[in-house]
């Protein structure tokens, strides 16, 4: 149909590299044969953009790269490209994401399957360029899917899977792959690069503009004014909103299926929605999201070695929120301590905690829960921090009386 859809020669490549999360994301974009990349650099995402520019300059990735004047244009360029049939990619964070917000809001409503990495960063102010989930959490209600990664390998695998999820005809929604600024963006680790042919086979032919297109052969007005209080009435608007909600809920099933297929094809099984770690016989649990999970798992191992019956539940898919999977993962525990790397202003707790207690409303029994906030502005969340979380949650399991939010790095 158009130039961007021309098939590309597959490059046979199956090797092991040592790279950081930003490079892993760039590898994933290259393996996903993205057609159009639009970028504007921002800390801590900048090196990701540089890797992409290099991959394109080296001829490894056959894509158009557009370096525009700001993030608002980034997403506007990609919306046009997507409407023309292209597979698209960008990455941003913090203030860049804020500047992108207008087209960001429009993307899910138009059901455009863009994939964007958020290299998470705490939002201003206080001034900071360090990691934290506040940027991604602040856009959680817009309608994009959100998957938080724990490791460099998971960044690579999830970014490729994100295309299959976003472009699924039952979903057709943009997806954010979130990896922690500093810890995953610059932390190098061993990473397996899957074979190009196998990835192309896994993703299949792109078909992103079957429902809305900029195409002279299929003339249409894109996103015209729908009725509100007057004219044709609000029913058109409501119909599209409900459709978007259905697509979002369909994503839960599709995410699970795509992760299972990824495991079958590439041998790496990542928990699609929530991961249960040492939850067998756990009397109480802690919950984590993102790269902090590694230290938390170590703390759980040490506690288990001491005889504490604690387990861990990691949330990978945060939007759509995996209510059923979470409730079943936490079934039977006497208390849960939820660790957030961001703040829900107005609730004086973390957003993951807030979503968790909302989900637990549908649990058969009432499970006391407590909010812990740590790792803001790049602060390290160590095994010692999680020992405190485990200790406090153990008390909660005993007395069932949750206290105010605990700020973990308050005295660091």
């Amino acid at each position, binding site marked *: 149909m158009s130039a961007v859809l021309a098939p590309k020669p597959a490059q046979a490549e199956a090797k092991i590299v040592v790279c950081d999360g930003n490079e892993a994301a760039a590898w994933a974009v290259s393996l996903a044969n993205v057609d159009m990349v639009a970028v504007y650099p921002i800390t801590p995402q900048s090196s990701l953009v540089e890797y992409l520019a290099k991959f394109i300059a080296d001829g490894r990735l056959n894509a158009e790269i557009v370096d525009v004047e700001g993030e608002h244009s980034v997403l506007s360029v990609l919306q046009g490209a997507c409407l023309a049939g292209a597979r698209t990619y960008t990455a941003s964070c913090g203030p860049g994401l804020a500047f992108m917000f207008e087209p960001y809001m429009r993307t899910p409503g138009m059901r455009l399957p863009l994939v964007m990495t958020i290299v998470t960063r705490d939002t201003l102010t206080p001034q900071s360029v360090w990691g934290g989930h506040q940027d991604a959490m602040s856009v959680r209600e817009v309608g994009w899917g959100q998957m938080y990664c724990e490791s460099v390998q998971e960044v690579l695998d999830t970014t490729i899977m994100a295309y299959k999820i976003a472009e699924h005809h039952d979903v057709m929604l943009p997806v954010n792959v979130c990896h922690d600024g500093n810890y995953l963006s610059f932390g190098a680790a061993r990473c397996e690069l899957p074979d190009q042919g196998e990835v192309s086979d896994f993703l299949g032919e792109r078909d992103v503009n079957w429902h809305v297109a900029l195409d002279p052969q299929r003339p249409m007005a894109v996103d015209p004014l*729908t009725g509100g209080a007057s004219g044709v009435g609000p029913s058109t608007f409501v119909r599209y909103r409900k459709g978007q909600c259905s697509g979002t809920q369909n994503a839960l099933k599709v995410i699970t299926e795509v992760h299972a297929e990824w495991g079958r094809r590439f041998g790496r099984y990542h928990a699609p929605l929530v991961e249960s770690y040492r939850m067998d016989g756990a009397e109480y649990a802690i919950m984590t999201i993102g790269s902090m999970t590694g230290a938390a798992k170590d703390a759980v191992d040490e506690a288990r070695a001491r005889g504490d019956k604690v387990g861990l539940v990691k949330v990978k898919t945060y939007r759509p929120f995996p209510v059923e999977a979470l409730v079943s993962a936490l079934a039977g525990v006497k208390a849960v301590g939820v660790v957030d790397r961001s703040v829900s202003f107005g609730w004086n707790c973390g957003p993951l905690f807030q979503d968790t207690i909302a989900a637990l409303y549908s649990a058969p029994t009432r499970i006391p829960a407590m909010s812990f906030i740590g790792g803001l502005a790049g602060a390290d969340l160590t095994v010692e921090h999680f020992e405190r979380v485990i200790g406090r949650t153990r008390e909660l399991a005993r007395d069932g009386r949750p206290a105010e939010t605990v700020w973990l790095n308050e005295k660091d």
Partner: protein
Amino acid sequence: MRQQAYKMFDASTIPDDLCPIATKPTPMLPGDWRSMRPVVDRAKCVKCAVCWLYCPVQCVVEKSAWFDFNLKTCKGCGICATECPQRAIKMIEEAA
């Protein structure tokens, strides 16, 4: 209305709760919602074409001795009346 080069896309082939699209052209023109219209004083008009130059919707049409307006496309913005060096154009309320 000008004929389209291609037939419009048949929207019934896709679910109607995805992206809002429109595949039927609506014939509404600015003249359908304009609240004021320009009127030329033919005695004052010297055909300098300043109104023709400034009109944002290019609705000014040339007559033998004066300039007039295509009221189907005129949106009633009044730029012509403001710019006319001869003060030959007046904006009047559209009748309800």
